[in-house]
């Protein structure tokens, strides 16, 4: 590692979009340690280490929903207008990739439905941090969305009081078309997601509460099972 690959703590904080204090905390907790300590005692970070940390998008989102860690500002959308702006930016990037021509518009629609679902169902009821985590890697063809909201079970129970578990709620959310739902005229976006995954090379891992759902690409199979680490809110990984 040459000296030019080393970043000061303020440079690393700037790239990651977090505060210097956060980096100090991450060092103490072991989440992200500096590559070395300078002779004068300053933390120095390896540029590649910072880039790898940023690349672990799913890990970052998971830590956010599980432990409420501070996340880089570049991945946080505090409101739906901000999400829309960033989604359009992603759309332009995906549109530029020839191999994605037949499906990019579906990928954007799926991400849009999942992200907006978070805002629609938690508006005025966010338990702590409002907004969503939204990140993507156009090279690796994956999109990660997460929220620290109420979760599918709690929000769906308002209109389907008979629901008993996260797994049941996931099944209803992704399969049951609710027509003319009143007074809540919403909630069919996830059916759209399962339809798109069934008919296209687009896959999904969706976790909420203590359950997770896997939609394999071009398959109608709905794999719902207990998730390893329960949390409130939702976490989604879209692959294409």
């Amino acid at each position, binding site marked *: 590692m040459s000296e030019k690959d080393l970043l000061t703590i303020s440079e690393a904080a700037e790239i990651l979009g977090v505060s210097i204090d956060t980096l100090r905390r991450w060092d103490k907790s072991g989440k992200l340690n500096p590559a070395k300590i300078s002779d004068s005692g300053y933390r120095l970070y390896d540029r590649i280490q910072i880039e790898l940390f940023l690349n672990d998008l799913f890990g970052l989102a998971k830590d956010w929903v599980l432990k409420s860690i501070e996340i880089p500002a570049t991945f946080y959308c505090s409101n739906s207008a901000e999400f829309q702006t960033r989604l359009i930016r992603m759309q332009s990037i995906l549109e530029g990739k020839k191999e994605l021509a037949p499906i990019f518009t579906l990928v*954007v629609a799926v991400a849009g439905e999942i992200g907006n679902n978070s805002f629609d169902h938690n508006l005025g009821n966010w338990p702590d941090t409002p907004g969503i985590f939204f990140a993507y890697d156009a090279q690796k063809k994956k999109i990660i969305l997460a929220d620290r909201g109420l979760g599918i079970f709690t929000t769906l129970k308002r209109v389907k009081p008979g629901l008993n578990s996260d797994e049941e709620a996931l099944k209803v959310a992704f399969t049951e078309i609710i027509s003319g739902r009143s007074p809540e005229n919403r909630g069919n*976006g996830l059916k759209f997601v399962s339809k798109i995954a069934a008919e296209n090379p687009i896959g999904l891992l969706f976790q909420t509460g203590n359950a997770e759902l896997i939609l394999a690409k071009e398959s109608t199979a709905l794999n719902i099972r207990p998730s390893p680490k329960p949390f409130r809110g939702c976490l989604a990984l879209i692959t294409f």
Partner: protein
Amino acid sequence: MRIELKKFGTTLISRQNGREAFAALQSQIAALAENENLEIEFDGVITFSPSWGDEFLSPLVKQYGSRLILIDTGNPSVKATLELLEKINQVPFTR
């Protein structure tokens, strides 16, 4: 009367924006004659989602029935969204 959806944006994805677009449409369709068709043109739309579509198209199909004509361009997100909205509303769109 023909309405070009691209004038509301080319990425039509949230309920909130769909509702705003529907509200903005009202002043235009006030001039629609009694037996005149309302044509919705999708040309130029890049991404279309059920949330936006449900807020904009569902009330129109309820109000105008077969007088609402959708001019589809073959965009995959438009096609998939229209299919889902037909299931939700249990009414086929006229295309």
